């Protein structure tokens, strides 16, 4: 264990050094502010890594300018540290975020972005750093223990979400009630008008903690994976990020950040999830 960690660390350091050496060719460095002059400082304090993110989107990204925080932000900071650079975040709008990273406005994007084929035409994605999970939320002490047991019951969902799709596809004969907002569905559950709610796991967890009277019966993994995006062809930066991500996952930083923001154990699959950039 310790040995592999050391080896991995060594590999990361090597990669970081190599990347700093070729940083001049990197597409993103031309537009970052105050990026120059740090090339000599080596692996410890490379030039800042500019990262675009659409803030706020709690708990992934939130906070005020200069003081951003959230799961994505802290994870990116940890990854940047592993590759010997300091992450600098720019708030930007999600519609244009992939175009902007492709054009070099910033070097990387971390913004709760699901890896999709469509987006992959414009940018390259890192290995998944977050697997979206759906939770089956029920009343405390309910006899319903799984998604299947909601069969034929009244099920609340948030309109237009993955949870709604999952409920439609996986639960037979259920009456599905789509509410405009997640909390409306949770309230319907508490009042007893629906018997279960299928919703994003972090939202469900939040409801369990803040509202009480409800509990998570089951967590169901979905196909959605979040990735960090870089401009197409930025292979070295992508390699660094993947390596950094692996590193923070292995040394426990990932788990700590995950639990801090989602109050849940990270799903085991995330530690082996990989993704081939196209």
């Amino acid at each position, binding site marked *: 264990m310790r040995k592999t960690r050391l080896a991995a660390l060594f590999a990361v350091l090597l990669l970081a050094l190599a990347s700093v050496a070729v940083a001049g060719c990197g597409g993103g460095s031309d537009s970052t502010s105050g990026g120059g002059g740090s090339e000599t400082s080596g692996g410890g304090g490379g030039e800042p890594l500019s990262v675009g993110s659409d803030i706020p989107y709690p708990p992934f990204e939130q906070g005020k300018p200069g003081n951003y925080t959230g799961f994505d932000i802290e994870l990116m900071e940890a990854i940047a540290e592993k590759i010997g650079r300091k992450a600098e975040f720019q708030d930007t709008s999600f519609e244009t975020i992939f175009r902007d990273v492709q054009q070099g406005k910033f070097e990387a994007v971390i913004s709760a972005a699901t890896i999709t084929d469509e987006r992959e035409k414009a940018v390259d994605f890192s290995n998944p750093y977050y697997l979206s999970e759906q939770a089956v939320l029920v009343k405390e002490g309910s006899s319903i223990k799984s998604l299947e047991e909601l069969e034929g019951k*009244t099920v609340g969902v948030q309109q237009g979400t993955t949870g709604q799709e999952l409920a439609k596809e996986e639960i037979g004969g259920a009456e599905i009630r*789509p509410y*405009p907002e997640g909390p409306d569905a949770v*309230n319907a559950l508490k009042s*007893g008008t629906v018997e279960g709610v299928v919703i994003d796991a972090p939202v469900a967890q939040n409801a369990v903690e803040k509202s009480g009277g409800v509990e998570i019966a089951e967590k169901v993994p979905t196909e959605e994976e979040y990735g960090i995006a870089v401009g197409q062809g930025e292979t070295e930066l992508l390699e660094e990020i993947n390596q950094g991500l692996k590193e923070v996952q292995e040394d426990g930083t990932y788990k700590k950040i995950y639990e801090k923001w989602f109050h849940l154990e990270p799903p085991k699959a995330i530690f082996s999830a990989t993704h081939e950039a196209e």
Partner: protein
Amino acid sequence: MSEFFHQYFDFTIMGDHFSEILEGFLRNLLLFAVAVVLALLFGLFLALLRQLPGKKFMPLRGLTIAYIDVFRAIPLLIILFLISGGVPYLNFLPKDIRIPHWFGQPDPFWYAVVALTMVYGAYMAEVYRAGIEAVPGGQVEAARSLGMSHGQTMRHIVVPQAVTKIPAPMLNEMISLLKDTTLASVIAYSESLLLGREVLAETFNSSAVMLSGLMFLVVVLPLARLVDYLIKRNQGKITRGSHIEVA
């Protein structure tokens, strides 16, 4: 511009989802049909309570006026949220009343019926009142001097005449009620707006929502013309100086 048309008038999407939006619209009509009957009755009841004579009925009159004022003042959307969110917690009531599934209709339907009846009952009470107050005072005096009680006067003389004076404003309230049935979408009643928004979430195209709007148009436009006709007919009578005949 073409993007606008694509976003709101994509006939392929409208065609693909026509039957489900229509099904939703029929649920709007069903909600309307039940709520309008109850609201008309409840409104008349409130209006009559408000007309009760004498000192004895003062508290009841006051309460009725307070009710009408309160429910005309609070937005229907909020009432809807409060009823659907609050009634299920009234533990002293049996579960069939707290979470009703009568006649095969889901509980959001019944919460919407109650909310619409409570609010439109208040609006309609005001319309009835206008009709009742438009009946000349001499009619009441004549009836009472013939020995009719207050109740008899109301039943045989005032209300039949009042009702003939109010079709136009009452129809306007009914049109509003019909349109407000879409508010039930926020408590997850599967009416046409909710189903249209489902399609929107699926296709990122608003044409199905537009389609639901068009269905309302088809039903409401003739009703609106009818209101105009009734108003005109009424005015014609007044300008001709003739009496409005008792029904």
